[in-house]
């Protein structure tokens, strides 16, 4: 038995896998297609690639960027496509929509608020976004609220970076998800993406419905950033 336990611990340590929250049982969102990445190296590699692609020569080579595990957090690879044009093939009626797809890294944490006093999204946002207000010039900060029948949410980001921070409160249950998305979107597209992500969240377990971002085009040409 001792050998078996030692072997399991060894395997867990050497493969870099970790347990995380079962997010699919808590919420559904079209951008979240599985229960999350479990390979620390894969998460770390994606994190570094996104930073290098965005900051280029201004990438911070000296900081420790290692990913740290936690049972109440999950990481997900996501993507977001933006239509860049429509092409008509000469001599035919075929229309082709072209898209650029942007990869991103989502970090998500679900929280049961049933034991806490009720707070507004505005109050929670003001508290949670302090670190942005403390480290960025005000003129660089973009923030907004998203409210629909299911959720009340907010997001914030700096024009200087590729990080979007968000909070989503359920309107029907005392639950919240909050997290961050690193995605190298053009600045003009970030708010639209954040609104689609927040607005497409549903706090009902395993519904499998509403996949935000699906398209009906018959033909697509894609480039990936």
């Amino acid at each position: 038995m001792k050998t078996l336990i030692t072997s399991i611990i060894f395997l867990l340590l050497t493969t870099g896998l970790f347990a995380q929250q079962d997010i699919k049982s808590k919420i559904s969102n079209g951008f979240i297609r599985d229960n999350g990445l479990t390979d620390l190296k894969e998460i770390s590699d994606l994190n570094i690639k996104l930073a290098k692609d965005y900051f280029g020569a201004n990438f911070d080579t000296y900081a420790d960027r290692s990913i740290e595990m936690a049972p109440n957090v999950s990481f997900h690879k996501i993507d977001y496509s933006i239509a860049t044009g429509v092409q008509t093939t000469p001599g035919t009626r075929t229309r082709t929509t072209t898209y650029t797809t942007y990869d991103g890294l989502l970090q998500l944490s679900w929280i049961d608020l049933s034991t806490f006093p009720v707070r507004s999204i505005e109050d929670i946002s003001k508290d949670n976004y302090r670190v942005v207000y403390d480290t960025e010039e005000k003129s660089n900060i973009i923030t907004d609220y998203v409210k629909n029948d299911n959720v009340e949410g907010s997001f914030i980001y700096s024009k200087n970076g590729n990080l979007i921070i968000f909070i989503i409160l359920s309107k029907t249950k005392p639950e919240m998800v909050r997290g961050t998305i690193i995605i190298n979107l053009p600045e003009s597209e970030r708010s639209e993406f954040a609104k689609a992500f927040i607005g497409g969240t549903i706090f009902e377990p395993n519904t499998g419905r509403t996949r935000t971002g699906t398209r009906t085009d018959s033909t697509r040409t894609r480039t990936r950033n």
Partner: protein
Amino acid sequence: MGAAIKLRDPNDPSSVYIDPASSDNKVSSKSVNPSWDATRGYVIGYIHNHPGEGSPSPSDIFNPAVDLLEMVNSQNIPANQLQNYLRNFSSSVVSGGNVYTITIANAQLFAMMTGNFSAAQKDANIQYQNATLEFINRNYSNGTTTEEYQASGESALIKMYGKMFNLSKQKIGETDRNKAVKRDQNGNISKVNPCTP
């Protein structure tokens, strides 16, 4: 609000004086001008406040520091002055009823990062924000007190650059109780007596 800490004599680390306070000495912007010459002064550190009550950020470590590699290469600084600088540099932050002090731990790493920081500052800020929120998301379900918010930033900053600098913290009004801020492998923060082996 902040002020530069300078030496009257670059060969004498006890010749410390503090420049008049200026509201321009914000280390988060490029208004800080570290220098090591007779004209602009021998700047051994900065002291400033954080009205938002946050803990030190990457800017508070590296913006007040002289580019050591450039200083060594271009000015032919005497070895004793370089030692004075490395041993006595400090960046102090007054925030939320506490005083933080940053000092140099590993001169080589610190010098390399300082030289790179003006280019890497935006990336560093984003990493710091992300790491601070990671800590908050892991540990605090419904808001943070000032102490918790500060612990989140401390954990983020030490994770990112912990090999390069030392961080200590003291409550204002508590004399002789300066504590070294340490981070364990799970990211948790503890305050220890710096004299404890």
